[in-house]
Every structure is written in structure tokens, then in C-alpha cells.
């Protein structure tokens, strides 16, 4: 008995050490950002490792809004992200339902092709679309970037919505149809409300795609007036010696809302992802 206790204590100890080490590794870079964002401008590059620097200040945060077009980037990013999210969710909610409930010509091929798009390297669609946008004169336009983002987000969103609809029993609509409801009514009033968690997750995914995207934006939005947040932040990083504090402050502001959303929704995220990928 004694030996067993000792052993389980040891296991527990190792468990906690492992957990703690990983937690530290995970939060350390974030603490770094906090610490750098609070440094005064003349001590940006210091070899100091303390978390709250001496003479900490909010200068970087204030400077972002007063001296830099940070607010504008936020507005730009919000605009692009909302357009992508709303169009993505509507299209995916409709198409996913058809994919889940009905048989139609070419359904299997359609589903497989959607999955196949996940294997495209980024340039596979970006390069032809870039050339098309150049030819259409849509470089430096939000329409251009919304199109490219939809191409990346939509297939995954449809697949995910389909996976979730699959888990809702068909008996629900059948009952409604027997009662004389139309197909649309059964979908809109009965199934769609039940699919709310999936809609939320799909929205989160599309939003994050647009909100956090750098490489596409770098090619399509060359005019600084149109820049979204990632382009702005990268420009701070390019001048690391003088603008590292701005970068840190900006990246905290950019990350905190999505992190909170993500944590709140993470419970549904798990079920959405596992269902979406296991079923099919």
C-alpha cells in the first residue's frame, strides 16, 4: 500500500511539473509582449528580463492611436472581416444543408473537391487570382481581397456546416413536412436554430481567416490607405529598433478580442471540429 502511494505521488509530481513547464512556455512570449509594450521609447532594446519594466508607461498604446493610422487599420480589418464572415456563413449554411440532407447529381465529387482544396498550397489560387485581379484592375481593392479570402474560407465552412447538420436527426424535419410545412420552413425554422453552435464556429473561422491574414494582403493591398492590421503590424516589425514597442502594444490589442472569443467558444469548437472531420 505504501509503495503504491509513493508511486502515485511521484506520478502526480511529474504530471504537475510537466504541466507547469508547458504553461510557462506558453505564456512566456505573451508576457514578453506585455513587457515590451510597457517599455519607454528610449529603452525598447534592453537586455532586461523583468516582466514589468522600470518606469513602465502606456506611451506606446497612446502613440498608436494619436500618431499612427492604427484606428484606420482596425476599421479596414473589421470591414473586410465582416464581409467575409457574413457572406461565408450564409453561403455555407445553405450549401451545407443541401449537402447533408439531399442527394443530388455530383454530390460525392463536390464534397471530395471541397476537401481537396485544403491541399492547395497558398499560391495555387493566390497567383492566378492575383493575375486576374491585376487584369480586372481590382488590385488595391477590398473586393479583390474579399474574393481571395472567400476562396480559402468557404470550402472549409461548407464542410463544417455539413458535418454539424449530419448530427441533427432528420426526424425533426420529417415531422414538420408531414404537418404540411414547406422544405424551406423546415430548414429555416427548425434546423437552422439547432445549428446555432455550428454557425457561430463557422463565423469565428471566417472572421479569423480575414482578421489574421498577412501573405495575401501583402500582395493585394499595396496602398497604405487600405492596409489591414497585419500589414500595419509588419511595418512596425520591420523597424524593430524604433517601433518594437508599438508592435507589441498593437499585437496585444489585435489579439485580445480574438483570444477572448476563441476561449469563450472553444467548447463548441472541439465538438464542431471533431464531428466535422470524423463524420463525412
Amino acid at each position, binding site marked *: 500500500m505504501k509503495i503504491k502511494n509513493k508511486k502515485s505521488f511521484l506520478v502526480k509530481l511529474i*504530471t504537475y511539473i*510537466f*504541466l507547469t513547464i508547458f*504553461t510557462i*512556455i*506558453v505564456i*512566456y*512570449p*505573451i508576457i*514578453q509582449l506585455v513587457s*515590451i509594450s510597457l517599455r519607454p521609447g528610449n529603452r525598447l532594446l534592453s537586455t532586461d*528580463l523583468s516582466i514589468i519594466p522600470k518606469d513602465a508607461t502606456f506611451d506606446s498604446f497612446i502613440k498608436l492611436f494619436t500618431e499612427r493610422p492604427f484606428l484606420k487599420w482596425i476599421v479596414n480589418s473589421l470591414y473586410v472581416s465582416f464581409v467575409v464572415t457574413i*457572406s461565408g456563413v*450564409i*453561403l*455555407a449554411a*445553405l*450549401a451545407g444543408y*443541401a449537402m447533408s440532407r*439531399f442527394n*443530388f447529381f455530383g454530390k460525392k465529387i463536390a464534397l471530395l473537391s471541397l476537401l*481537396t482544396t*485544403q*491541399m*492547395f*498550397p*497558398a*499560391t*495555387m*489560387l493566390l*497567383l*492566378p*487570382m492575383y*493575375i486576374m485581379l491585376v487584369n480586372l484592375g481590382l488590385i488595391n481593392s477590398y473586393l479583390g481581397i474579399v*474574393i481571395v479570402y472567400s*476562396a480559402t474560407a*468557404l470550402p472549409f465552412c461548407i464542410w463544417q456546416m455539413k458535418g454539424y447538420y449530419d448530427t441533427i436527426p432528420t426526424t425533426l424535419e420529417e415531422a414538420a413536412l408531414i404537418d404540411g410545412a414547406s*422544405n*424551406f420552413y423546415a*430548414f429555416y425554422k427548425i434546423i437552422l436554430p439547432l445549428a446555432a453552435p455550428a454557425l457561430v464556429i463557422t463565423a469565428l473561422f471566417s472572421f479569423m481567416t480575414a*482578421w*489574421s*491574414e*498577412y*501573405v495575401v494582403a501583402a500582395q493585394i493591398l499595396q496602398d497604405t490607405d487600405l492596409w489591414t492590421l497585419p500589414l500595419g*503590424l*509588419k511595418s512596425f516589425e520591420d523597424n*524593430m529598433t524604433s517601433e518594437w514597442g508599438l*508592435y507589441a502594444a498593437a*499585437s496585444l490589442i489585435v*489579439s485580445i478580442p480574438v*483570444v477572448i472569443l*476563441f*476561449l469563450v467558444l*472553444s467548447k463548441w*469548437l*472541439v465538438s464542431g471540429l*471533431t464531428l466535422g*472531420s*470524423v463524420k463525412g
Partner: protein
Amino acid sequence: MISEKLKKNIFIYLLLTPAFIVLIGVVFYPFIYNIVISFSNMNLRHIKDWQIIGFRQYYKVFFESSQPDFYVIFIKTIIWTVVNVFFHVTIGVALALILNQKIKGRSIYRMLLILPWAIPQYVVALTWRGMFSYEYGAINLIIQKYLNLPGVEWLKNPTEAFLACILTNVWLGFPFMMVIALGGLQSIPNELYEAADIDGAKWWQKVKNITLPLLKPVMIPAITLGIVWTFNNLNIVWLVSNGGEPSDQTHILVSFVYKAAFNLYRYGYAAALSVVIFIILLLFSLKFMNKTKVTEKIY
């Protein structure tokens, strides 16, 4: 009078048409166009007056002595993928096993450990790039202050720069696997463990005979997806190494194509290389999925 069947068909096509039109425009058409470009001599000078030149661009992909070499980058990409996914899965599953037990502060640990997945990727990449800086980066400062070792030139040497990318991506990727594994663990019925307890099974026997086999069907699709995503992860390599620095020696295939397309304007070549990457991934996924299904049958 419209028949029920026709009504239903109209409904189906109304649901599908909007997404279908958009997908044709933004996925299917560009995909075909990309294949056309890959057979052409399109580049910055021939952007309008390009011609079809057959397989020459594909020939260049495999046989042109480019700097850096295609095969070297290909091997690097495989190393990148295998190392990353290996650590994502082992760390992820290990943490999930721990978090699935009754542990004090479980939900707080879970919340903190998800953070790397929640933060936008480009922020992760740029922040780690800062931390890898030679003089002022936190990593070298820790190495020097606490381990009393000389600092490492993370971003100036090819091997170290590649290692820096991998470290960043490992940090970023394990929460996904952890979350998937946690979901899988929670779906394993408790009775199995109780039965095993009655038979006097040790904890590692339970892990080996109950947990891992039942976790497998959940993890296989996630791992496949993880491999494809890692293989194609442009963000981390591009941003941590600042576009392949030093002197284009830190590339995986996707970052190399991106460079060819948008810094060197070799459109035809980049399109051909994109197709090659896509085919590699497609063949791999088909094979991998098949193989894992086969092994499942053996079980």
C-alpha cells in the same frame, strides 16, 4: 400545379446555387487558370502576351539547378512537416491525457494551454522573431543569463533559422491536437476503465489497450489535416525567417513558390511548382488515409 418532387429539387438548387457560383469563380476557375499558367511562359515581361510552351516549366521545377535546389527544399519540407507534426501530436496527446484526469485548476490550465492556437499566426511569428533576435531577444538573454552559455545567432545561420521556425511552429500547433485529443478522450466510456480496474490493469496498460486505440479514429483525420496544414504553412516560415533569410536558405516548398511568384515574378514556374506541391499532397493524403484504414481493419 407543381409536384412535390419538383418543389424539392428547386429547393435543393436554391440552396446550392449561391455557394456553387462563388466556388466556380473563386476556386474552380483560378485552379484551371493556374494549370494553364503552369504550361505557359508567363512572367513579369510576358504578363499579357504569354504563350503555351508545354511542360518546360515542369521540367525546370525538377531539373533546373536553382539556388536553392528543389530537392534540398523538398527534403527540408519533409523534415519540417514530420518534426512539427510529431511534436504537435505527442505534446498534444500527453497534455490531453493529463488534463483528462482530476487535477486542481484543470480548466485554467486548459485555457492557458489553448492560447497559442487563439493568437493570430502572424503575431506569433513576428513575436518569436523578436525573441530570436541575437542581442536583445529573450531567448538568447535567458541562455546567457541562466545557462551561462554563449548566445546563438538564430536568424543569421541557415540551420538555426530553420530550427527557430520549427520551434515557433511547435509552440503554435500543439493546442490543436490537444483539443482534438481531449474531445476524443471524453467520448471514451468510463465503463471500459472500470472493467480494466477490476481486471487489475496498470495505468499504462489502460493507456495502451483502451485509450490509444480508441483515440486513434479521432486523431487520424486530425493528423492528416495537421500534416497538410503544416506542409503548406507559409506564414511561419515566411515571417520568422523574413522571406527565407539568410540568403534564401530557409525555405519550405510553399515559401519558395511564394517567393518565385511575388518577388521574382516567375509566374509560369510558380504555377507549375504549385501544381507539383498539390499533387504531392494529394497522393500522400490518399495513401495515408488508405493505409490507416487498412490498419484499422487489422485491429
